């Protein structure tokens, strides 16, 4: 389309240099790709640090020789204890962060996270049911129960959205309502449980990576990895949701379908993390914001950046949790906030202009 005449958009428009759009856009995109690469490098460093830090301190060479199986003792420590823990930390961080990014986009709310959709409280209630029913003896049943209730919550929210409308306000209000319902049910279960069960419930809510094996990792990966291609395909539509439902619809986006699909995939990813690791708060809320501050709001770049950042945060929190008070292990759910909050405030204060 040819636009006929230049119009004045204010004083900044005078005497400006001509913009070479292709070069400028190419350069900004390249910067974002480099940022994602740097974040990935940070993830690798965090993983190596995670492998070497713990009750048995291993040097870099020890870790490398353990990875190739040259030392029996170190190999056992690395392959049986630390590698599964690190893989699960990466998966959980990625799942929670990407789930949070999608939740914020589809609900168009910076305070949203998978927890806003009621997933965490549903999973928490499921875990409590599992602990009470089995006396805390079966991790498999506890995780399955947590997973089932996480999904039940998502479907209840979708049912409410279907009855009313799939607007962001409806989803948030339904999520908050179910969050309170499941929190009350969890409190009631705690009230009628034995001291031993209450102890296990409290421990589950702290979050932990210590009971994770390869079977759990496999199931979590099945829930966390497959949604990624679909979400990346929807990246432009998620960008459009940020400019309003009506604009998105007029540009050809099926908003109701995108929002329903987004709720299902974000819940699935978060449930994959929560049901095996317990409640790891904060990551789903803050990773998307930190990633946005670093590379902007284009979901083609934001989704991977946020996912990697979430993995780095969970991994660093776990490594610090295992090392600062060794041999005691500080639960991951506590450590993520200890690490993430100061970093988040630093970025928030350092920015010259208003973020929201």
């Amino acid at each position, binding site marked *: *389309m*040819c*636009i*006929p*005449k*230049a*119009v*004045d*958009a*204010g004083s*900044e*428009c005078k005497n*400006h240099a*001509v*913009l*070479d*759009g*292709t070069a*400028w*856009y190419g350069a*900004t995109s390249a910067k974002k790709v480099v940022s994602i690469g740097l974040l990935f490098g940070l993830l690798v460093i965090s993983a190596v640090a995670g492998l070497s830090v713990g009750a048995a301190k291993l040097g870099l060479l020890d870790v490398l020789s353990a990875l190739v199986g040259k030392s029996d003792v170190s190999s056992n420590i690395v392959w049986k204890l630390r590698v599964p823990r690190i893989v699960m930390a990466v998966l959980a961080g990625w799942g929670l962060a990407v789930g949070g990014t999608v939740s*914020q986009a589809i609900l*168009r*709310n*910076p305070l949203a996270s998978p927890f806003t959709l009621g997933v965490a409280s549903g999973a928490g209630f499921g875990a409590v049911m599992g602990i009470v029913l089995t006396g805390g003896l079966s991790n498999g049943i506890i995780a399955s129960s947590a997973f089932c209730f996480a999904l039940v919550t998502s479907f209840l929210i979708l049912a409410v959205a279907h009855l009313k409308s799939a607007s962001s306000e409806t989803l948030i209000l339904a999520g908050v309502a179910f969050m309170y319902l499941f929190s009350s049910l969890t409190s009631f279960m705690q009230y009628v449980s034995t001291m031993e069960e209450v102890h296990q419930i409290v421990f589950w809510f702290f979050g932990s990576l210590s009971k994770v094996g390869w079977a759990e990792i496999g199931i979590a990966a099945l829930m966390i990895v497959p949604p990624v291609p679909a979400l990346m*395909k929807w*990246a*432009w539509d998620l*960008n*459009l949701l*940020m*400019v*309003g439902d*009506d*604009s998105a*619809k*007029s*540009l*050809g*986006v*099926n908003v109701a379908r995108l929002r329903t699909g987004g709720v299902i995939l974000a819940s699935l990813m978060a449930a994959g993390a929560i049901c095996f690791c317990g409640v790891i708060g904060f990551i789903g809320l803050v990773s998307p914001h930190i990633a*946005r501050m670093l590379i*902007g*709001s*284009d979901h*083609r770049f934001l989704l991977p950046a946020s996912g990697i950042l979430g993995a780095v945060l969970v991994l660093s929190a776990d490594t610090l949790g295992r090392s600062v008070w060794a041999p005691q292990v500080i639960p991951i759910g506590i450590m993520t906030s200890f690490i993430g909050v100061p970093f988040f405030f630093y970025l928030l204060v350092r920015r010259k*202009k*208003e*973020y*929201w």
Partner: protein
Amino acid sequence: MLQVTDLAFRYRKQMVLKDVCLESKRGQILGILGPNGVGKSTLLKCMLHILKPTGGSVTIGQEDVRHMSPLKRAKLLAYVPQAYPSKFPMTVFDAVLVGRRPYLSWRPSHEDITKVTEVLRLMDLEPLASRDFDCLSGGQKQKVMLARAFVQEASYLLLDEPTSNLDVKHQLEVMELLQETVSQDGVGVVVAMHDLNMAQRFSDEVLVMNGGGVFARGKPCDVLNWKNIGAVFGVEVEQMKGNNGSRCWYPVRPFQKADRG
């Protein structure tokens, strides 16, 4: 031609639109006038199929908008909404680029980028390209929204009160921009507005709505008179003449109950 025939829309039990008929021709501006809550925005949303009409039809050429794919509809109809919600940072360039969504693959093509750059340049928004959309003034935001609609390259532009938040200078700039786009590119424009004088000056035709239906339709000089304005808006107006012979309306006072009786 964009044609609306007997369009009706009901929200629960409340009839919002009834028997609305209009035609928008390419190369013309159709102004839609009416008091608050009369259904102007609802009419535009029904035309775009954002809201599903409960009766009647909207056709472009011979094809019903209802039966078009969302992407085809987006290539024919562009929309500039009244409000622009924004909760997350987004550069002006990106805010305009999303207007290319009907043509975009995962990676924007050279053509997509060139179109956006060209429109930003011609609208003098180029220096703001890397700025956060949320940090712009109301007038600048409105221009960015228009730029987004322009890069969509649709045959018809549907605008919902595009000048409502602007000062007089920006109002004139936006309306002149629309007028020149229409005359040069042959785009059809349907614009909901409140300002009688802007409608009088810039519209090729006006449609005055009242009570969810069409009250009057035709050329501004035929439709906009003290009698129709009084009946629809409930105000007494005086007609004034400019130096170049143009007409404008000066609102004197709202009618009292006794006046209506």
